[in-house]
């Protein structure tokens, strides 16, 4: 089971209180996690990556085991600790004013 931590605004949108747990089929990558997340919470589509291009939104970042993986290939394998559910895949809204 993959654990995913969402930023507060997306938790509110998806109506979840805490981190979410997802079944991910096949390789565990950014893309497969986001596919599973958007499938279970369709209201999140378009909020983390573009509907058409699938490119990450500029002010959204992805972290795994304390490392920023935002600029890694979306198809790159994630660390074993994320795959095993020991560590969560963390989605963060960039710190910015306003």
């Amino acid at each position, binding site marked *: 089971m993959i654990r995913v931590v969402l930023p507060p*605004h997306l938790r509110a949108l998806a109506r979840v209180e805490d981190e979410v747990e997802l079944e991910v089929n096949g390789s565990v990558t950014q893309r497969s996690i986001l596919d599973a997340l958007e499938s279970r919470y369709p*209201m999140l589509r378009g909020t983390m990556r573009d509907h058409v291009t699938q490119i990450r939104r500029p002010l959204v970042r992805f972290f795994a085991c304390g490392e920023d993986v935002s600029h890694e290939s979306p198809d790159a394998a994630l660390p074993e600790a994320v795959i095993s559910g020991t560590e969560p895949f963390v989605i963060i809204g960039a710190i910015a004013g306003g």
Partner: protein
Amino acid sequence: MSSVRVLVGTRKGAFILTADGARKRWKVSGPHFAGWEIYHVKGSPVNPNRIYASQTSGWFGQIIQRSDDGGKTWNTPGSSPEELKSADGMPRGESNKFVYDGVAGTHQWYDGTQHPWEFKRVWHLEPSPNDPDHVYAGVEDAALFESRDGGKSWRELSGLRKHDTGPKWQPGAGGMCLHTILIDPKNPQRISVAISAAGAFRTDDGGATWKPINRGLRSQYIPDPTAEVGHCVHRIAMHPSRPDTLFMQKHWDVMRSDDGGDSWKEVSGNLPSDFGFPIDVHAHEPETIYVVPIKSDSEHYPPSGRLRVYRSRTGGNEWEALTKGLPQRNCYVNVLRDAMSVDSLEPCGIYFGTTGGQVYASANGGDTWKPIVRDLPAVLSVEVQTLP
């Protein structure tokens, strides 16, 4: 007894203000969608419990929200708890998918170069007068979309953006937004829209083809002051009984058309400035109009720090200042283009919100004013529903 529901969009959420027909005691609910920018909230004229909201964020993009119970509960269209459990499978989650039709193309940037069309947000939602599932969305960068399934999916009416003049359109200071959508109640195939800073456009075939309707507009500081496009129209208002008569507040001047926008004449008269954002029409008097003069070109606050609504009972040219109950010293707020509305009670109620977070209401056509709330986040939009 009749009642009113005021739908307020702010920089940090939506608020719903309700009162009975006396409009003296108000209940405030919200913030809904706390922390998000709510550009616009508007109810269906056919079913007032159907309300659409544009929720947006620089981080997470555009969200469309819908309520089917008058604003008590909200869902992204297609993703209600019942729909998520549907035996038909999971929803497609496309209620926020605004994709330009075909090649997006380019428009003019601030420096005169060409710049790609990029979707940013929905500025204005205009529910159809006939069908609660049919709603139009005016977006930045300027385009018109429509949904015929209650906001679950959207398609662009791309004849507008693909008009020959598109490469000459340019953003105003707030972005290149399509902010005004007026549907002719006698002929829904006729729709007029306004874009900052391109001007006004009209379709007579339900959105397939469009023409600029800017003849008579004069913008003295653009290269060609009477150009076909390039005017910074801030708002257009129409009384439903007279769809051929349009009133416009633009950057420089208040204008009037009596031929559906084919030609315009200036009716600024004795207004204290040539600038402002909203303009609206009295619910029962089609020649009574309201504006809020603002000092420009860069200050964008009321002249002399006095917040005054100006009313013309003659369809323009002759204006009176309405000041009772409004701050007449040290007031430096702005009133944005979508932040004024009227109810249809007798006497007509007028409402507007400020960037200082006040929502002012007049229950007597503008003669006197009171704040309903004083300390909301900056107000982006105000719409009023008159309920039976």
